[in-house]
């Protein structure tokens, strides 16, 4: 059977969430939702898995700390031992308080930039990328749910959408 894509337009987010819950409980998958503003708790309702961006952030942070430590150890202790406030600098740990601000800043820098760049690449929000929004009205005052399904369950889904308060239903 052939695939069909359904675009359901709503005037409010509440009926959209209600329809989404009904569809999910009957086993249909929701491909995406376009909305003019972020809707709290929608991830769980439409079945988006939890983001792994936090794990990336942690890894980038660790990288930043390690790089800063390596750099300072090489510059200040190994290559050219530097006298910091009259303290011996034969080992990294002896001067560790002086290195903490830089470790911290480098961690934040790497975590923040790494996370932002990963996010842009993953969602392909790069300069020159084509807008994927199928209906520009969803940037203004409309909410749209995109459902990809088999030809056979079309009428079933349409009745759920209409009963749930969808103002328009289109097939692509």
């Amino acid at each position, binding site marked *: 059977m052939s695939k069909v894509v359904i675009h359901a337009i709503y005037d409010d987010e509440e009926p959209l969430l209600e329809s989404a819950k009904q569809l999910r409980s009957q086993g249909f998958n929701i491909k995406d939702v376009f909305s003019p503003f972020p809707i*709290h*708790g929608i991830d769980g309702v439409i079945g988006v898995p939890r983001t792994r961006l936090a794990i990336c952030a942690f890894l980038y942070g660790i990288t930043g700390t390690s790089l800063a430590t390596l750099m300072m150890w090489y510059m200040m202790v190994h290559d050219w031992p530097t006298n*910091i*406030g*009259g*303290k011996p600098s034969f080992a990294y740990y002896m001067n560790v*308080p*002086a290195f*903490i*601000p830089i470790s911290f800043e480098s961690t934040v820098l790497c975590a923040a930039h790494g996370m932002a760049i990963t996010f842009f690449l993953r969602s392909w929000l790069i300069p020159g990328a084509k807008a994927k929004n199928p209906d520009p009205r969803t940037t203004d005052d409309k909410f749209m749910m995109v459902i990809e399904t088999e030809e056979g369950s079309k009428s079933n889904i349409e009745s759920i959408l209409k009963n749930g308060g969808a103002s328009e239903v289109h097939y692509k």
Partner: protein
Amino acid sequence: MTNLNYTFTNKTKNITFGLMAIGLITIIAGFFADTAPEGVNAEDYHHTRVWANLLVNSYFFMGIGLLATFFMALQYVAEVAWSVAVKRVYEAVSCYLPVGAIIMFLLLLAGQLHLHSLYQWMDAETLNPNSPKFDEGIVNKHAYFATWFFWLRTCLYLSIWSWFQYGFRKRSIEEDLQNGTSIHFKNMGKGAMFLVFFAVTSSTSAWDWMMSLDVHWFSTMYGWYAFAGMWISAMVTIILFVLFLKRKGYLPEVNDSHIHDLGKWVFAVSFLWSYLYFCQFMLIWYTNIPEEIIYFQDRLHNYGYMALMWTVFFMNFLFPMILLMSRDAKRNYYFLTTVGCIIFIGHWLDVFMMVMPGTVHGNWHLSWIEIGTALGFLGLLLFVIHRALTKAPLMIKSHPYLDESVHHHF
């Protein structure tokens, strides 16, 4: 709407009375048990260990009431909506402020009457050039520590703080009985006034009562460091009380999002404290000027506080950072309770570290006198907060943001 009125059960009441009794007995027994350490003339020794303990606890517990008042003022001024559902809880915690202020006042008065010798500069002999106690450093600071000026400041801080606290509490109960926003806007104005007054007095009070224990030493970061320490203690007390009430089945409107937000406050203020604590340490360590570094020499090398100093750092920085980082941790009641208790003890130890090296020096202990006194003050704090919770319905009835707070969800 169930169980709007909190009942202070006899069991809880007996626990608080028991703790207070332990504290009272410990303090009295402490005066008999505490004798002059080696090298100190018994006639010159004024039971410094017991008095220093009283100072640790007076300051630490008063700080909880004080910073709960600060938090309350902050919520009014910033027109915060989510926290309205737990407003009665932080209001109840703030009710300890007048009690703590009286205890602090009596403790300082005892110093002025020379019942204890915690504050070296309270001894007039230090100003007398012919006395063996003469101290030029104190003479140079005499303009600030002149008796009349010190007492003027102390009385102003304590009375004005308590007066603001009393006003907030009174108006909050009045607000329940009427509609409209007039009281809300009045609270906003008073809150702004309190914050301005507190911005200055939080630092100066810390200088007067705590930094002056090491009278020759000074640090411009000290006031903020003390302030951040009191703030986190107050936040932890608030969150522990919210969790306690939730577990008892009260506060049905408080959901996981409110708890999560309180958890975020604990996490953030832990970082504020760590940041100020480390900044103060790093600048002093870096420049290594003798008159400044002595503060950390006393705390790290001279009197054997090294292990305690590290414990304070781990308990108050690394534990909250690692344990409270994830979203799930901030929504788990048992987890939050455990971390809250760790931070509470950690900050009590932090105040201990502020007071002890400058007063009892090497003659420090962490045994029955210290723990018993702390338990006594804890009993008093719990008693005052529980009693304040019974005085007003746990959920407020009228507030412009009440509805928003009840629907708080993220």
